[in-house]
């Protein structure tokens, strides 16, 4: 054991302090990088040698650069993000649908219905009045227009949900591609004994973002690669191979089907299962296939029952010109309802008896009264297996209330998810996040260590000088 070994020990110290400062630098540089896990340098002592019968160390060695990472927390974050993706898509869609039904601040279908029946009541006080008849026609037109507007608004919502599936499937495929290539890089790096901390961070982050789109399952294999599965069990990523998701127009519904092509080229329709695991795709499919079509079905049923009830009564009455059997509306859904083109001001059937006959006259308002009375008549509305018996206005009000409940639930769920994700993120930050104060402290610590090791070399050099001077 000589002076030379002091040089060796001091050199390991300098080297390791430099590595530690490099890692600290990496941490500081990535303080704001999404998904970055803080890294810690772990040292170990070098092998000991025996000198003069005593064991002496040979300096410091790098044990590992550890990535501060919690696998369980990561799993919770991934699952939470799936639920969050679903709820935020739903909240977004419903907050766009809700204004169509906001009868509180705008005049929508509810007001049009009131106006429609009100015009019949007005007509009943002056059955022969041309002005009153004209008002019945124009109120009916505005009622029909409101039905059409609502129906096309709802259809627009369905279509916009359908179109967004295109982008979602594309980004799922993008994430699958990058996870597969990260798998490959991690495999290569770690096979060579390298450190793949940053690559793993990137992969975790990719899975996290993928989960927002679709609720995936994942598991790490013994070789360090990650296998990702879709909710229906299809393998999206395995090793460096990945499947692709695309949309395909379904001619039967006019909407998109979700098509999965596996890495081996097997094509399957996963529309029915892909939404099970939540995610944006799950939320979007619910909006497209259940929520908005549900409202549309109720609206259609409402239009249908209104058309039937008004027509049945109108056909029984007589117009000013003695015509009878004239239908008031045509069509049977919210998009097809319209005023019978044969209907004129004269043909509006306000009279219960023929006004051109000897026994009756144009002042007969019997049928107008009955038509006005339909406002308070209970009709039976059947959507699917649910039958409701109530007045038209009341049925519409309950639809408004239902939209409100749905929008509120979606908002509450989204807020809950947000606060849940915030807590998880806080935990993750606490565990994996970079603390500048900590890194700066480390920086001072390692800088001092570096200086001290350097001083060791100076000292050893002086020692050597002393020895050499002895010889001179």
């Amino acid at each position, binding site marked *: 054991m000589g002076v030379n070994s002091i040089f060796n020990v001091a050199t390991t110290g300098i080297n390791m302090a430099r590595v530690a400062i490099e890692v600290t630098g990496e941490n500081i540089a990535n303080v704001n990088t999404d998904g970055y896990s803080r890294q810690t340098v772990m040292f170990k002592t070098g092998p000991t040698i025996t000198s003069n019968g005593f064991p002496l160390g040979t300096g410091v060695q790098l044990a590992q650069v550890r990535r501060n990472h919690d696998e369980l927390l990561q799993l919770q974050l991934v699952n939470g993000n799936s639920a969050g993706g679903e709820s935020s898509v739903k909240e977004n869609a419903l907050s766009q649908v809700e204004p169509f039904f906001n009868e509180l601040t705008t005049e929508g279908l509810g007001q049009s219905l009131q106006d429609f029946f009100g015009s019949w009541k007005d007509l009943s006080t002056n059955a022969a009045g041309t002005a009153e008849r004209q008002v019945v026609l124009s109120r009916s037109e505005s009622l029909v227009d409101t039905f059409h507007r609502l129906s096309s608004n709802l259809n627009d919502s369905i279509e916009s949900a359908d179109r967004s599936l295109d982008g979602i499937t594309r980004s799922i495929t993008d994430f699958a591609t990058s996870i597969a290539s990260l798998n490959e890089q991690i495999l290569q790096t770690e096979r060579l004994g390298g450190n793949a901390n940053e690559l793993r961070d990137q992969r975790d982050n990719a899975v996290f973002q993928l989960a927002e789109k679709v609720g995936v399952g994942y598991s790490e294999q013994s070789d360090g690669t990650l296998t990702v599965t879709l909710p229906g069990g299809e393998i999206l990523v395995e090793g460096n191979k990945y499947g692709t998701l695309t949309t395909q127009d379904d001619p039967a519904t006019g909407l998109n089907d979700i098509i999965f092509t596996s890495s081996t080229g097997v094509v399957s329709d996963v529309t029915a299962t892909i939404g099970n695991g939540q995610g944006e795709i799950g939320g979007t499919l619910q909006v497209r296939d259940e929520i908005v079509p549900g409202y549309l079905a109720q609206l259609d049923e409402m239009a249908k029952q209104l058309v039937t009830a008004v027509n049945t009564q109108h056909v029984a009455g007589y117009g000013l010109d003695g015509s009878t059997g004239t239908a008031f509306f045509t069509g049977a859904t919210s998009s097809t309802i319209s005023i019978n083109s044969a209907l004129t001001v004269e043909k509006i059937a306000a*009279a219960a008896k023929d006004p051109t006959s000897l026994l009756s006259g144009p*002042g007969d*308002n019997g049928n107008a*009264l009955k038509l006005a009375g339909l406002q308070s008549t209970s009709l039976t509305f059947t959507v699917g297996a649910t039958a409701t018996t109530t007045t038209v206005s009341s049925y519409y*009000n309950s639809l408004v209330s239902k939209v409100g409940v749905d929008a509120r639930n979606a908002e509450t769920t989204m807020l809950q998810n947000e606060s849940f994700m915030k807590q998880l993120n806080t935990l993750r930050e606490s565990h994996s996040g970079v603390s500048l104060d900590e890194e700066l402290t480390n920086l001072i610590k390692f800088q001092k260590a570096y200086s001290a090791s350097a001083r060791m070399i100076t000292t050893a050099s002086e020692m050597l000088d002393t020895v050499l001077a002895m010889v001179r």
Partner: protein
Amino acid sequence: MRVTPGMTANNAMYNLQKGRTILGRLQEQVASGMVINRPSDDPITTRQLLELENKLEEGEQYLSNITKANLWLKMTNTALGGVADVVNQARKLAGTITSGSSDSTVRENAVSQLTELKKQLVDMGNTQFGDQYLFSGSKTDTPPFSNTDNLYHGSGDAIAVEIDRSSISAINITGDSLLMGTGSYGSVHVLQTFDDLISAIQANNPANIRDAALKLDNSIPQISNAISDVSSRLNRLENAKTMISSDKATIQGIISDTQSVDMIEAATKLTLRQTAFEAALSATAKISQLSLLDYM
């Protein structure tokens, strides 16, 4: 627990966002004056509010119906007053010559007055409201009476108006029950009686004059029956109007109780939240300035 600047930033962002959301809500309430601005604010109350508003609007409609019915019935009342006057005058005139008169000028004078009165009576019976004949049932475009015959040209239909939910009131009196005695008011054919009286006076037949005068006597209660029928209908309309108006006031009270913002409360809340939000802002700004770097 380690606390990192990322955590602090996330927390601050989340809380500031929340603060802003609450401020936005309160601000909206104060600005709109409404507690519930969209169905999702309170779906159940929304439904109640909509039902109440429907009821309110229905009430408005009934009030407008009542106003129209009122006009019609008041016109009818005026016409009936005129009819009563005419019949009374005829009755007086008949009283002056119950036993006939040998003076042909007196008779001719009476006849011409009666003929004039009958014309007036027919005119009264043909009273119009706008372009509608009041007394011709549903044949509102046909004059119910004419000077050439004593027939009724209208129909016997009642014109009914809805004055409250499932409460219907007729607004017309048909001419036949008024002047021809076919209804419940009485059984005197007033028009025919006038003609009978005129021809009796022309023939100077005291028995027939007395007979006709007696019929005229009987026609007076017939007309007052009609007048009191109209009055009772007007009464009913008035009652319905009062009831609907008081309902309206109650409903408006409920709506404003549930929907109107208590401005004092809302303004206080807004101020409180604003202060809290400002505090949060300043705390955020201060905390994020702290760093070990400043001391190195």
